[in-house]
């Protein structure tokens, strides 16, 4: 069976160079980087070497990189840490409506300290407009966080302009770069952001390592205390192997990015062009002009996302969906809903994230398999049946309320 791995947003293969860089620290070099004796020497050198490599990837100074364990942790540290350190100045935080949950959820928990969140709406492409951001900022706003690119719909934000808006109000600006790093060149100085999140996985590094860029002089309340690691910004013995792997992966990615991006862009273009020739009733989502390479998001109308994923998996193809049925939380993607897609269409979402190793064969295999899978599922679909009878597939009978979300939640327990 031919395979096609289109879920790099979930996990990406480890670069061989990264694996090699990790190996000593899974073996004899078990020392703690803080140790004074010689067992600490190589691990310490590895962590600091990796810091320089990771910094170089995003044009940061090595000292401005804080290592964490995941992009989720970096996001938590950024938004909670920045907000808590500025709580004397105000309690409002402005974010886009399409942030990752690891930005939205920690901000919600800050509610107990009296913080409140303002969500800036996005347009139908998933773009945050600088004037909308400016309009959302209040007198007691102390932090703005808008992601660099969105993994579900591929849209790249005008981060530089958005950061400038925040700075006009003297407010620090954080951006989650998880979906951007490893796909487009990132320059944190050029973007003029105060904090920037990115994980090792975005550059084919290991799970278990990520970075938070923190512009010099930015005050941050640490979340994990009780040690002086990472310049008192994150306590705890470093995961030396993962960090070493991150450094090596960052260096390789920096040198190969132009070539990888070009190949991913070309493959995605094939799908944008060829899929509509093979399949009716599909809607590509996200911006077509400002988009990360190798990303395809599409609504395949009248079929549900999880059913598509299972059928694709039977053909060796790995993809993702924003449908509520495919989500552990049983909630439809807040990103698609924020872009104004109705629930039914969000249910039909399919997300492909390619990687440096994706090939034309993968794409051809996908283009061959999705149409028959869709046809089979549409034959079962009451919505498609309505369409065929000339009715409005999405019509709701008067008096019909949706108890779906509620039902989902209760059954989850």
């Amino acid at each position, binding site marked *: 069976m031919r395979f096609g791995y289109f879920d790099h947003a979930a996990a990406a293969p480890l670069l061989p160079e990264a694996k090699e860089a990790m190996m000593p620290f899974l073996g004899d070099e078990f020392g703690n980087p803080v140790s004074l004796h010689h067992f600490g020497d190589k691990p310490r050198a590895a962590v600091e070497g990796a810091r320089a490599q990771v910094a170089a990837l995003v044009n940061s100074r090595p000292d401005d990189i804080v290592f964490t364990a995941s992009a989720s942790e970096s996001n938590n540290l950024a938004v909670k840490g920045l907000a808590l350190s500025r709580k004397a100045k105000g309690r409002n935080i402005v974010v886009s409506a399409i942030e990752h949950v690891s930005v939205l959820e920690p901000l919600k928990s800050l509610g107990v300290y009296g913080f409140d969140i303002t969500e800036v709406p996005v347009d139908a492409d998933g773009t945050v407009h600088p004037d909308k951001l400016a309009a959302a900022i209040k007198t007691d706003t102390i932090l703005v966080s808008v992601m660099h690119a969105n993994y579900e719909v591929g849209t790249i934000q005008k981060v530089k302009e958005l950061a400038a808006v925040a700075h006009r109000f003297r407010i620090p600006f954080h951006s989650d770069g998880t979906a951007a790093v490893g796909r487009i060149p990132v320059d944190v100085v050029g973007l003029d952001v105060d904090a920037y999140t990115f994980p090792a996985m975005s550059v084919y590094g290991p799970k278990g390592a990520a970075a938070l860029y923190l512009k010099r002089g930015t005050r941050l309340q640490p979340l994990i205390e009780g040690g002086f690691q990472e310049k008192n910004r994150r306590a705890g013995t470093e995961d030396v192997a993962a960090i070493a792997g991150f450094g090596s992966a960052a260096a390789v990615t920096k040198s190969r990015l132009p070539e990888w991006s070009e190949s991913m862009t070309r493959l995605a273009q094939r799908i944008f062009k060829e899929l509509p020739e093979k399949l009716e009733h599909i809607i590509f989502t996200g911006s077509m002009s400002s988009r990360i390479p190798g990303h395809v998001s599409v609504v395949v109308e*009248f*079929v*549900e996302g*999880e*059913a598509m994923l*299972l059928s694709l998996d*039977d053909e060796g193809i790995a993809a993702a969906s924003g*449908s*509520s*049925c*495919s989500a*552990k939380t*049983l909630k*439809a993607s807040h990103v698609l809903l924020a872009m104004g897609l*109705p*629930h*039914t269409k*969000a*249910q039909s979402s399919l997300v492909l994230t390619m990687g440096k190793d994706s090939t034309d064969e993968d794409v051809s295999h996908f283009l061959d398999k999705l149409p028959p899978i869709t046809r089979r599922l549409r*034959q*079962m*679909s*009451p*919505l498609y*049946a309505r369409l065929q*009878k000339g009715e409005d*597939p*999405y*019509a*709701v*009978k008067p008096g*019909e309320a*949706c*108890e*779906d*979300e509620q*039902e*989902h939640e209760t*059954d*989850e327990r």
Partner: protein
Amino acid sequence: MYSEKVMEHFRNPRNVGEIENADGVGEIGNPTCGDMMTFYVKIENGILTDVKFKTFGCGAAIAVSSMVSEMAKGKTIEEAMKISNADVAKELGGLPPNKLHCSNLGADALHKAIEQHLAKKPATGEKGCHCPFCDAPVEGSSICAPCKNQGRK
């Protein structure tokens, strides 16, 4: 994630389709909720002689629909009404906990279809012409309104 049985029914669902002039149609969920299931039943002498479905939902929802249709076919109305969500999940070799609500959809849609049939049943005893397909009373035309409605629904 799913049992082999669930995957088998998902890959080869039984009784997919619609029944023309069905004796009962039951629809659960609606497009705005994201999940939707429609069951069609054909009932002769109190027995479900045919059961078909159309489902817009996850793998579990499709497998559940298929299993419910299989379990209900050939059963009496009484037996079919007794098919519970738990029975369906059990027959499928279990469902992941967060997917149990999908089994509710299946049994509920079946029951709704049967109830629709029962609701129009009392009319059978009345005087006048009756639809040859579903025994509903007919005025003027030879095809009854409910059947016609369901035929094109």
